[in-house]
């Protein structure tokens, strides 16, 4: 499982994390030619409650579809950060929203404390594109996927009429990572 790369997007229900995972996995799977499997886990609530979406990327066939040793963890709430950071590999990447996650974990992680939600709200003007801003940052940090592939997958999945908004959100997210 050496070339297996595990991503978990976590936060609260309604933040678009499942869709974020679907877009990332679709970009890898259809446009990068690697294997990707996306799964999700959420409670019975439509909004609020813990939510997570996982993407496993590999050049080989993927057996177990869930994340156990995470390479990249995205947290859009403090609760999800507290809960899931134990599964993050040593030297793994943690992307935490700087507004929501004030208490960053101790440990040997590459931490990116980024203003994801603020960027969506203030620079794009729509808080609901926070998932796409996050995808931009992820595209910057994950070698297995390019910004162009993610953009293609974003445009395929978002509602008509929101293409420019989402493209902008994606690029802003990409640029959040130095």
């Amino acid at each position: 499982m050496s070339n297996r790369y595990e991503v978990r997007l976590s936060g609260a229900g309604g933040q678009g994390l499942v869709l974020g995972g679907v877009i990332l996995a679709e970009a890898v799977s259809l446009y990068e030619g690697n294997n990707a499997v996306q799964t999700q886990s959420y409670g019975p609530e439509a909004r609020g409650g813990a939510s997570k979406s996982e993407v496993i990327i590999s050049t080989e066939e993927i057996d177990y579809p869930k994340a156990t040793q995470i390479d990249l963890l995205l947290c859009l709430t403090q609760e999800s950060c507290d809960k899931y950071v134990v599964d993050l590999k040593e030297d793994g990447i943690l992307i935490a929203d700087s507004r929501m996650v004030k208490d960053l974990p101790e440990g040997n992680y590459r931490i990116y404390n980024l203003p994801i939600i603020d960027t969506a709200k203030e620079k794009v003007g729509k808080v609901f594109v926070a998932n796409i801003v996050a995808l931009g940052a992820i595209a910057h940090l994950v070698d297995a996927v390019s910004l162009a592939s993610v953009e293609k997958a974003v445009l395929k999945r978002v509602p008509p009429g929101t293409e420019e908004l989402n493209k902008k959100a994606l690029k802003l997210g990409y640029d959040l990572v130095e």
Partner: protein
Amino acid sequence: MSGKEVFYQGNEACAEGALYAGCRFFAGYPITPSTEVAEFLARRLPRVGGAFIQMEDEIAAMAAVIGASLVGKKSLTATSGPGYSLKMENLGYACIAEVPCVIVNVMRGGPSTGLPTGPSQSDVMQARWGTHGDHPAIALAPASVQEIFTETVRAFNISERLRTPVSLLTDEIIGHMRERIIIPPEGELEIWDRPRPTVPPEQYKPYDISEGIIPPMADFGSGYRYHVTGLNHDETGFPTNKPSLVQPEEERLMAKVTENLDILEKHEYTEKEGARIGVVSFGSSARSSRAAIGLAAEAGIKVDFLRLITLWPFPEDAAVQMADKVDTIIVPEMNLGQMIEEVQRSIAGRAEVVGVNRADGEPITPAQILDRIREVA
């Protein structure tokens, strides 16, 4: 395989497979984690001249599916545990009236409403024995999104050819999981249709078995009139309680399965030379099992693997083949021990059998299975 490449969820692949198989009718009642099957077909069925109905509950949905099948349409319903329980009465009706139909059960935790969004494999025995009376039971359990597509097609094919309901058992993990799949071009997968009468309406007897154990089935509304009942009946379809007619009919229903094992049984046996341990699993737990067997190989432990694709009828010969070779068989399943009993029954003491069980709404991890492999190694 040539075809159209898509990134699909398991439930979407199921719905697409149903359309490929010629399904033109869906009736259901929404329930997590199966609802996407209904959503997909609500959009797509009308475009191919089919019909979608959301019924008032699962009992009515199953009844509508039987009605649609009787007029000649390949019919589907999709549900999860609580709805599967409700469908059992009419599933038995479809068995005795010999009405082809496919029932998808995307398994979640139970009993009752249990864990709506959590995966489970705890309806395995319900798929075999859920409806009362002796009855044929066929259940298929795919383990990937691609396989959900092909097994849905196979479920329809079997159901049509044998005139009996077929259950497709998936679970929340593979039902909601997304993977790249190929939708084969039309004609690449074989499609089977039910046998239809060759005699004119006035000579038609709906349960005439002079030509074989599966009687030809006429479409209601095509000029053939006949009686359909859940009571034991004779060749005309009208009720009978004559012992000399009932016993052979009961036996014939069961023979649909026992005499068609060649088209029903489907499994993968992956053998390692000199292995003393075997794993038997299915559905999403089979993915965890395969990963664990890979990890065991890295640690120098050889493990044979029997992945069940058809759960019912259970492949006794394959289980015995494994039991004759290995000392211990491990059965990982997301329940507190169901399929393990069938393994034990089949192999009749030829090997030790131990389970890896989980019923907390979380998947069985490869590490859990690897621990058990190390314990018995």
